[in-house]
Every structure is written in structure tokens, then in C-alpha cells.
């Protein structure tokens, strides 16, 4: 069964919380190879994680 873009974004999100099994990683790689939209969203979600880390450390340093 092929993954829809919606499924891919769900798996990308899950990949930020746990290590995905190799089979799922392979299906994702195959999808990214042909789907620019999903590649963009993967990068956006990875950036969101960095942004939240940066947000949390700014807060605790009192920079606002």
C-alpha cells in the first residue's frame, strides 16, 4: 500500500517522538524522492522543533 501525503506527515511527526522501524523509514524515503511537498513539510516540522527549543531557552534566559 502506498502512503498518502497525509500519512507521510503523520509518520514524520511520529519520527520526532520515536525511532521509526526501518521498513517505515524506507517507505518515507521512497515517498520523499518523488514528493516535494512532503519534503518541505518534513523540513518545516524539524524547524518547528528547533524553534521550540530556542523559544524555551530564550524564556529561561529572560530574553523576550
Amino acid at each position, binding site marked *: 500500500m502506498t502512503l498518502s501525503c497525509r500519512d507521510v506527515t503523520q509518520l514524520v511527526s511520529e519520527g*520526532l517522538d*520515536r525511532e521509526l522501524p526501518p521498513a517505515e523509514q524506507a517507505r518515507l524515503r521512497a515517498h520523499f524522492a518523488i514528493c516535494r511537498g512532503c519534503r*518541505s513539510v518534513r*523540513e518545516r516540522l524539524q*524547524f*518547528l*522543533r528547533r524553534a521550540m527549543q530556542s523559544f*524555551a531557552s530564550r524564556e529561561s534566559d529572560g530574553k523576550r
Partner: protein
Amino acid sequence: MHVQSEFRSRVENERAYLLRFASLHLRGADLVEDVVQDTLLAALAGEARFAGRSSLRTWLTGILKHKILDAIRRASRETTLDAEAEGEAADVEALFRQDGHWVEHPAAWETPDRSLSQKQFFAVLERCLARLPAKAARVFMLREHLGAETAEICNELGVTPTHCGVLLHRARMALQLCLDRNWFAR
């Protein structure tokens, strides 16, 4: 100055910071106020345990995190939260066609990390966070702001791991959409 009252005033000085921290996780000024008040009282009662091992702010934030989790645990027992998320979920759903493919392919953001040195970016991020549906926001903030593990969060909130994953996905998709519309695509 008496040592104990000096500690009290140092703790009191962190009140504004703690209020702000708690308000990122909890909705409702009274609840935020209560949780911070409990934290300050616990800190004053536990002065002996502080002993300057970490910064005062770090220590107080550690206490506050426990109080926030307690408050969330109580709130998730008291309310049914499933219905409230529908608005934002619809927004995210509108990104996809019936068959689960993109209506419009999202574009790549150009050098997004440059935004991390801009104060205005964080103001936009904060507004986007405030717009999330309550339950998705709660799970997302525990994961990405407190750095809790997903298993721990599901457990605390009494939701299944699958549902936890759905909520995190929804929160992340809603946030990237909000940042795209209000920051990157401007």
C-alpha cells in the same frame, strides 16, 4: 538582611517569570495564579533543599513543572476534550484532498533558522501556540517545551499512544500552517 527573608524576596522576584511559563501550558488566569502560588509556597517551605546547587530559576521551574502536570492531570479527569479540537483539525484537513494528497504542495521555507534570532518571530510563534485547540496544545507543550517523553505524556493525560500521536501531528501541522501564513509567506 535576615537570610530567610532574602531568600523569600529572591523567590518572589521570579514570580513574573513563573506566571509566564505556566501561562504557556495552562489556560485560565486563576489556574495559572494558583499553580504559581503553590510553587512559591513549596519553594519557601523547601528552602533547605535548594542549597544553591542550580540557579534559583531552574530549581523553581522544576517545582513548577510538577505543579503544572498535577493541574493538567486534574483537568483531563474533569473535562471531555475531544470535541473542542474540531475547528483547527478542519483547517489541517483542508490541506489534503479526499485521497490524502496535497491540495497545494507546501513550499520550502527559505533559511528558516534566521528567524530564530528575531524577536518578532517568537511573538508570532506564541500567537500560533495560543490558537491551538486546548488538548493538542497541552500535549505539544509538554513534549516540545517541557521536553517530556511521549509515553509519559499519554500516561499523565490518560490517552492512548495512538491518540497522543494524532494530537501531536495535529498540533505540529496547525503550527507550521500558522507560521507559514503569518511569518514565512508574508
